[in-house]
């Protein structure tokens, strides 16, 4: 090699080395953080760190893992961690990283995560498909009429210029055609929407469900005219209103009462068999957290917003006793049977839930 080539070679080698080093450092700093929200809290430069756990006692706490959630379902879990309810029960919450909805169940099945939550209809399809899981307690429920409507599970919006103001208006809207609605069956969105459509005489077969990754994408599609009706969850109520969309109803319109919001915690059967003690502690911690969240909704919302990093101010309403009322689960299952996703009698409620960990 000539001298020029040698110099070129050396320069390039040095540049490559520097690049590799800086990338490695950057990658190290940015690695997926696995830890409890309070730990992650302090990593987010948040000076309003509430009474967080000190790291010395943490050594004695048993870790309980779930995926990192950046949406409204995280509230009771965050509250339980930040307010020390998990600590009281000798548990430490560990967030293991974000996942897409289709990956949550696999991650619980192969042990990456200990628990997750889902609605009863999804749970039924999981169990019918052979997944060895069981629900152990309630998380979210639909609040009764005495509670502020902003806690209701879902709200339905339409464009202001569509002329629709109530559910009845939908009967004559786009007569003979399908109504474009967001959602992917089976989910809370599709179940409650179908129930409401049936109840108000519009008919569930007029529903054309289009899948979107997020509620926010659904709102965007609604604004651009690609959807006729969009159904969203609490963190997006404010966004929907600010976008000038018209509210035509919410999940209480389904007439299902508490069941309209039913969300259940589940563990694998293996976990339940081998570590029932931890499940008990988890259930107790969550019950306390849920009671607290219902009594202190603003602070709960703030904790959630701080963690998620948005200025959403919305929360769900939680069950103050984790007892699962089987009557509330039945409508979700029936909906699956109506849609042909399950056969009559294929699943018994006892296949889905266990009452042994309920906390009154």
């Amino acid at each position, binding site marked *: 090699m000539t001298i020029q080539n040698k110099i070129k070679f050396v320069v390039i080698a040095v540049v490559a080395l520097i690049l590799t080093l800086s990338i490695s450092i950057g990658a190290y700093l940015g690695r997926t953080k696995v830890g409890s929200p309070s730990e992650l809290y302090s990593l987010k430069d948040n000076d309003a760190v509430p009474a967080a756990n000190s790291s010395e006692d943490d050594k004695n706490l048993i870790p309980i893992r779930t995926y990192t959630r950046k949406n409204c379902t995280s509230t009771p879990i965050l509250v339980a961690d930040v307010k020390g309810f998990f600590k009281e029960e000798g548990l430490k919450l560990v967030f293991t990283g974000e996942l897409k909805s289709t*990956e949550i169940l696999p*991650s619980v099945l192969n042990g990456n995560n200990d628990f997750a939550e889902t609605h009863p209809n999804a749970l039924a399809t999981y169990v019918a498909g052979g997944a060895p899981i069981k629900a152990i307690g309630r998380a979210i429920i639909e609040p009764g009429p005495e509670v502020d409507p902003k806690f209701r599970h879902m709200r339905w919006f339409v464009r202001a210029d569509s002329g629709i103001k109530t559910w009845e208006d939908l009967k004559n809207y786009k007569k003979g055609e399908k109504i474009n609605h967001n959602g992917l069956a089976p989910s809370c969105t599709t179940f409650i929407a179908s129930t409401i459509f049936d109840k108000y005489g519009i008919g569930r077969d007029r529903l054309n469900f289009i899948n979107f990754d997020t509620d926010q994408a659904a709102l965007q599609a609604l604004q651009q005219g690609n959807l006729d009706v969009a159904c969203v969850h609490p963190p997006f109520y404010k966004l929907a209103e600010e976008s000038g969309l018209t509210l035509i109803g919410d999940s209480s319109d389904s007439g299902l009462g508490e069941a309209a919001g039913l969300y259940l915690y589940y563990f694998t059967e293996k976990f339940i068999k081998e570590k029932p003690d931890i499940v008990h502690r988890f259930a107790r911690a969550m019950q306390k957290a849920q009671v607290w969240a219902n009594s202190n909704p603003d602070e709960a919302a703030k904790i959630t917003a701080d963690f998620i990093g948005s200025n959403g101010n919305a929360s769900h309403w939680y069950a103050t006793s984790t007892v699962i009322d089987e009557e509330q689960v039945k409508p979700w299952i029936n909906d699956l049977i109506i849609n042909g996703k399950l056969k009559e009698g294929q699943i018994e409620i006892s296949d889905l839930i266990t009452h042994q960990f309920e906390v009154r």
Partner: protein
Amino acid sequence: MRRLLLKIHDRFISLYIIIAFFVLWEVAPKIGWADPNFVPPFSRIVAEARKLTFLRLFIEASVSLKRIFIGFTAASIVALPVGFILGGAFPKLEKFLKALLKFLSQIPPFILFPVFVVVFGIGEKGIYTVIFWSAFWPVMFTTVAGVQGVDPLLIKSARSMGANNITIFFKVIIPGALLSIFTGMKTAMTMSFMMLIGAETLGADSGLGWLIHNSQSMGFIPRIYLAVILIAGIGLAVNYTIQWLEENIIIWKEAGHDKAI
């Protein structure tokens, strides 16, 4: 003077369009050709970049790059030997496995995500696996093709000059297959970058792909565009690097042989 200007003009001709594009991007939302809520002007994207701080962006980019490099390197480490063995040492085995391998390579990686999560778990392992899968097939197939494409005459003449198998391998086969291998690596890199966005949904909370998802679900639209541009830019840079490596290593490539752009 005129000649100098013409020369500069010549060099910059390719940049004109790019500059015009960015100018258009800046102007269009402002004069209403595009809805500024959904297509923010370029200046806002730059402002968003500054808000996120260069350091943060660098960290996210580094995480993504690390994942790609690890997946890609792992794929190469496995694919190259496999390709050499199948292409050269055991041609019968290659014929035997060819159909099966072609079949497996056609499975779209993003469809396999839930399977990967189940088998390999979430977090970095899952992501590496996706990148590995995307990069493995192009490299392996092009290595096999490269080895098979070496002129048998060259091998025969080397043997007649008394070269043993090892010498033939290093001095005849590798150089002969290198062109094909580099093409495969470029393709593998492209595929890896393509899959990065999807891969970083498997239990990550950092990285450029994660940034896109996160911005989408939070509604931070300028960030989406920012992350897209960054990924494209980095991908381009990596591709040029491989191209440069190829040009400097394969110095024996005949001029004008490769007329592809």
